[in-house]
């Protein structure tokens, strides 16, 4: 597989958008949303079905496309048999997909979560950006509020810029960039020999550092016409932003792709994106910046 075209490919614009077709009850709604995104981005739409190609399925898909207002000439269809996760990932690489759209339940039962569902396993491994839609509807969703991660990571600037790119195309009015400050280790260092003013000063310095970091990040972003806010939230990375997005009823949470290959241990001792995947607070966009 020639991956040279993928390397250093910017995280946006989205030129090819793929959607996984599963013939589930939410299939049509997911395709409707994929169409909305591909229209907004001017991207070509790719429909992927992993499974055998039968006449019934072809008929059903034609009906779904018809109801979704998609002409078969406006999209490309790929049928392929194989293990769903690996096959979808392979197809995304081969077709240089920039954004893969999947339907996902907000929360899965414990066993399924630890084993890993198709959507979540793809999110962990994908080499392109992934959009997880929790409640797709048969009419195009309206996105008003984005919550975007602002953690200290080389990927973050690409994630923020991708969210601005998308926000402009979707006419989003409000973006909140959130930096999470994990203060759990402070109690241990301060308990024995710090006075109250010293503890207060150290906490203040940590918050100031986080705010400074966010400001520096934002200096390199173009966010004309969008109301952008900064927010520092205390808590573990991944969990704190997820909770914030849920509390603020955000329409889309935008986060960095994972830094390492995630496995079962990362689900047991959860960190970062695993907290988000454990309980999706809203629709989630995982930006793969390919840096």
């Amino acid at each position: 597989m020639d991956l040279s075209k993928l390397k250093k490919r910017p995280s946006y614009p989205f030129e090819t958008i793929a959607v996984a077709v599963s013939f589930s009850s939410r299939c049509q709604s997911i395709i409707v949303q994929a169409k909305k995104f591909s229209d907004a981005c001017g991207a070509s739409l790719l429909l992927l079905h992993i499974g055998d190609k039968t006449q019934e399925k072809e008929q059903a898909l034609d009906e779904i496309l018809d109801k979704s207002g998609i002409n078969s000439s406006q999209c490309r269809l790929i049928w392929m048999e194989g293990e769903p996760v690996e096959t979808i990932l392979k197809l995304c690489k081969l077709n240089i997909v920039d954004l893969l759209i999947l339907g996902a339940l907000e929360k899965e039962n414990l066993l399924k979560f630890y084993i890993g569902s198709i959507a979540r396993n793809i999110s962990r491994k994908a080499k392109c950006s992934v959009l997880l839609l929790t409640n797709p509807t048969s009419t195009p969703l309206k996105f008003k509020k984005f919550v975007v991660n602002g953690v200290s990571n080389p990927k973050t600037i690409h994630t923020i810029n991708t969210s601005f790119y998308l926000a402009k195309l979707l006419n989003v009015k409000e973006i909140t960039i959130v930096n999470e400050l994990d203060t759990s280790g402070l109690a241990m260092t301060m308990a024995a020999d710090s006075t109250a003013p010293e503890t207060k000063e150290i906490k203040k310095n940590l918050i100031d550092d986080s705010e400074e970091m966010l400001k520096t990040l934002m200096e390199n972003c173009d966010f004309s016409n969008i109301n952008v806010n900064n927010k520092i939230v205390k808590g573990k990375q991944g969990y704190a932003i997820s909770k914030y997005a849920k509390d603020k009823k955000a329409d889309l949470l935008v986060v960095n792709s994972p830094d390492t290959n995630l496995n079962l241990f990362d689900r047991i001792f959860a960190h970062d994106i695993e907290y988000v995947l454990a309980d999706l607070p809203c629709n989630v966009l995982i930006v793969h910046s390919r840096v």
Partner: protein
Amino acid sequence: MVKLAHSELIVLLLSISTMLIVSRIFAELGKRLKLPIVMGELIVGIILGPTILGLISPDVFGFLFPRTGNVPIALDGIFSLSVIMLLFVAGMEVQLSLVLKQGKVAIYTSVFSMVIPFFTGFAVAWFFPEIFSISNEQGPKLLFALFFGTALSISALPVIARILMDMNLFKTNIGMVIIASAMFNDLIGWLIFSLVLSLTNTQAEHLSLWYTVAYILGFGLFMLTIGKKIIDKTLPWMQTKLSWPGGVLSISLGICLLSAAFTEAINIHAILGAFIAGIAFGDSVHLREQAREIIHQFVTNFFAPLFFVSIGLKVNFIENFNPLIVAIVLVLAFVGKVLGATLGARLGGMTRNHSLAVGFGMNARGAMEIILGTLALNAGLISKPIFVALVIMALITSLTSGPIMKRFID
């Protein structure tokens, strides 16, 4: 029920208050000289113990810390409770997710900073037991070698965290690598030490080595998966439906003691139960910052001074000072840990200077080493001269860690 006599109760209260007040005064004085708080507490123990007070005024020493009657039994109970609480809060700061999050560099650093000092210590103890006055019999020699390897490989998370905080490195990449690796060292170190202690326990019915290993791993696995999940699910309820913060305090300390009682009952030392319960509790995303702070304050400012002062009460540091053992322990501690952690960080992809900074950062042993040594001394695993050498090593590594690290960061 046996009760403390009126006079015994007065003595008990006097001895506890003396330990608390004098250690606080020394801790505050030590703070001005930028010395670790544990050093002040140890010095108070030496002053109030047989080394100084026992020598100058044996009557006062005998009155405050009697050797017979019910007072020493009551004090021993308090000291045991103290070490259990200390291990609980130590566990509360261990976040295994941080090791996974930091990826390759943290895994290499933690493994190498554990394996190299462990085998260095094990090999020296195994091949030269006579240096430490250990019998050449297979059993005692193996237990001592296992202990010595563990003692050299453990780190002191609170001291390291404090050093990083003072150097403004706490939230940096290098700081996170050191913290994550120290957490992993602590977990593995306490698991091995619990195994050594349970094999040393002569009072309890002996289990075979493999049963003990299976019990320790089984308990650890259960608490860190199912136990952790249960705590995680019930914490939000505890923090909203019960009195705040009393409810969460009682339940968390109750779970700690319950877990400690369970491990003690299955012939693994109570400390493991407390430590693992601490991990399960402290790792929860739902544990509020305030609750964490209160637990830390309570343990660090009440139980910790009592425990560290008690060390000086038990051991005469001048009589048991053996320069040869101290020198060997110091050299092995520095070489094994610095070499192991530096090598691990370098293999993990860090620059030469940053790897050396990680190596010296991980070298601080602090309070954890002293707790480990005390438990080993109480279990009859080591002699007083080895214990004194471990305490000196813990203090010197803690004092030198920050300044040496600074040279490689600047």
